[in-house]
């Protein structure tokens, strides 16, 4: 099975320290630590599990610039056979549809049975996977949390509300967006990355891919105008004072709201 995983390099947001920069036109980026988008990492691990069972190779691709190479290398250290960077000045300002168009052009140059993306990235849009599938006319399923290989098709589970699992059959080739928790990704450390440090990562541009007017700022239908801090609005009434005082106030409130018998 030839598997392509679309990955993305994103800032680490787990410590809740995203702030606006001074100009107010972007988030403050220095001091941010970047790594591969977590759902994409789960997708690569899933792809590796599949080829370890059934043979084939895993290719990882990303749309970006030189600084994005590091995540390709990390996934290659994990076991992906090759990494490809799709980069061109003309790609700047692409919206989700543009990114999907770039990826679709790349897919068409190869022969992949299965294309995986992570369910969503830092922008929470969860769009590229579905768009890519539509551009390629491949069947699509999102929020996949289990994959079973059948002949020429897959049996997949999707995570839906209530913790239920929707089982589907999907023909190959297809596009799946992978939910976290589908597996336990293997550890990749500095040593692993050093071992793949000298492997070549080809870069393809607009001309190589034959992406004409479908990507870049001009083709974008959606553009971010600004960032702003969420209005605090009413927000929570913060209880202040000594712990004892707070506990007492809280108990009074709970009584009033029916939380205490």
């Amino acid at each position, binding site marked *: 099975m030839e598997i392509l995983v679309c990955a993305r390099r994103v800032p680490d947001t787990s410590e809740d320290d995203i702030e606006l920069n001074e100009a107010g036109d972007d988030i403050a980026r220095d001091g941010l630590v970047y*790594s591969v988008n977590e759902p994409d990492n789960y997708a690569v691990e899933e792809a590796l599990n599949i080829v370890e069972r059934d043979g084939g190779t895993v290719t990882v691709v990303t749309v970006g610039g030189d600084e994005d190479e590091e995540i390709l290398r990390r996934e290659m250290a994990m076991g992906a056979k090759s990494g490809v960077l799709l980069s061109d000045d003309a790609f700047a300002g692409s919206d989700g549809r543009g990114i999907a168009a770039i990826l679709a052009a790349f897919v068409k140059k190869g022969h992949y049975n299965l294309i995986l993306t992570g369910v969503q990235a830092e922008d929470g849009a969860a769009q590229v996977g579905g768009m890519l599938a539509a551009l390629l006319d491949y069947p699509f399923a999102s929020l996949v949390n289990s994959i079973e290989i059948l002949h020429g098709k897959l049996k997949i589970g999707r995570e839906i509300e209530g913790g239920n699992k929707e089982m589907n059959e999907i023909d190959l080739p297809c596009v799946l967006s992978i939910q976290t928790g589908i597996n336990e990704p*293997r550890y990749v450390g500095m040593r692993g990355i050093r071992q793949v440090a000298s492997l070549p990562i080809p870069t393809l541009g607009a001309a190589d891919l034959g992406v004409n007017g479908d990507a870049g700022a001009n083709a974008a239908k959606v553009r971010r105008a600004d960032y702003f801090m969420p209005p605090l609005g009413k927000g929570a009434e913060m209880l202040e004072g000594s712990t004892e005082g707070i506990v007492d106030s809280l108990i009074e409130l709970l009584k009033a709201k029916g939380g205490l018998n």
Partner: protein
Amino acid sequence: MATTIQSPAEATFWFIQGRILFWIVNLLGSACFAYILAKRMRPLLRGQRDPRFDRPLIRLGRLLQFWFGQWRHPRYLGAGIVHILFFAGFLVLVVHTIELLALGTSGSPVAAGGLYGAISDYAATVVFLCMIVAMVRRLLHPARYAVPARYGRAHTADAIFLLALIAVLMAADSLFEAGYAAGHWQRHLPAAPLPVFSLPWMLQGALARASFALVANLYLGAYLAHELAFFFLLCYRPFGIQFHVETSLFSVYFANLDRGTVKPVRWGVPDARLDEVKSFGVKTFEDFTWKHMLDFYSCADCGRCSDQCPANTVGRPLSPRFLTIKARDYSFQHFPVWGSAHNGDRLIGGIYSEDEIWSCTTCGACEAECPLLVEYIDKIVDLRRGMVDDGNVPQSLQKALQSLESRGNPFGKAEKKRADWARAKDFVQTCSVRIANGNAPADTLYFVDSITSYDDRIQSIGRATAKILNRSGENISILGTVEKDSGHDVRRFGEETLFMALREHNTAAIHASGAQRVVTSDPHAYNALKHDYRNMPPVEHISEWIARKVRAGGMKLHALENDGDVYAYHDPCYLGRHNGIYDAPREVLDAIPGLRRVEMRRSRDRSFCCGGGGLALFYEPKEDQRMGVKRVQMAAEAGANVIVTACPFCMVNMEDAIKVAGMEGKMTAIDLTELVEKQTR
């Protein structure tokens, strides 16, 4: 009617002349043993290299102390005394036994008498009695000999068999002597008297009324029995725990001399060339070094290591004893005496489970206890290195490691906040700490390390330490945001590459600061800087520093306000066991007027690990109980209501344990620095 006793060499045993028979037995037995030894050597020759031939004088000294002097044995007094007695007996009997074996072909009728002969007779008696005692003990089954179901059958039968055989050997030797003396006495011939109350003497008495023919036959039969028993034992020992009789000398001589640190990934491969090494760590049996393999042979199955192991005590899947026994059995199976060798099985997922290896806190209790100086920590670290190399790391540890790599601390907190603890408003007003951040030079550097820098509760240890140093006129600096985690536990959890990166970074930062000395309040950082790092200025733990000041009279400790509390000091593993610092903290506590201190039943080098520090805080073990809970219960049993420790990780675990054990209000935990800071205000 024969007039004298025929010597074994001259007698005929079922149509074979003794001399010929015993030539054959001696030759065959020795050849067999040599062959078995050679086969047992095979995996060692295929194992990794391990330089243990240096510092011969020190090694000889330790051989005298631990092997000849049986130094560790009395730690379990009953078994210890029994072992010391029969070990001494064996040593005495060496020459005597060689004489005995030789006389079967030489023609002498009996081994030499005289003073040595008499001592030998008593030695044989003592060994015989010790074997009886040992067999009875084994049958009464002290708990630590028990074999949990998942490890297979009990070892009792085999143990009794071997002990009985040694008893038979002693009995045969004694009967031979007795037969000779009895036979001569019956024929009114001269014979040296046997020492009174020795086993030969008692047997001679028993033979007093026996017929001459019987005595002669017993005499010859005993000799044959001795020969056969001796060579049987010789060739059987390498198949079980009694192999330690032969290997103990070597396992002790070649034992590790460098405490506190961990072996390199590959001996002989410098750090700069580690990228050439294809596979890190131990994945298959032959990845162990020859000394580790020798350790597997040398285990006497005494169970003392597992008895002391805190992980084993709280029901984690780790038992050091069985780590060794399983490896030994593996080597017997895969490198057999008869048959071809086959290596290649993965150990993790085979004889070892992942949780078994991750469960270890590297506290060192096992190594401190083992009478044969078997090493454990290096093996566990090597096995972990293998798992890390394969990417086989529990998810909770992966997160911490990823944070260590990207932010220099396992909590994922921002680097720029690392020195915030020293910027707290009310702290800054009372204490001056220079935050170097790579710029200002330092004289005394306080290496804070990650948990003291970032954990809200533990930051108070940092502030207390800084205040103590300040109050006695010390100008201290901290590295500030350029400090990264010492990497102590990164190394011990098998991520050597990340450890080396952290070490390189911190070493450069410390050198750049121009620090003349380093102080730390974190025993893990202390151990790393002292043993894992190289070319460091002198490093002290804060307890040593305070003790020095107290001794010199430079620190005035006020009396306690509340003298109703009872304090128990808990020895942190990396301050106590690994670095031998037991007295300094106690001196400090005893210098506080009005402080009542008790010792817990497991203290000093028997201290019971709190649960582990560094990355151990991120591993989720399968256990019946927390180690910390056991420890605070021990403090309560000792009559204490305050447990004092000198390690931030011990503090985290103790306070956690107090909550989990429901002992809030009955037990509090305080760090030595916090206590001293209070008493020096």
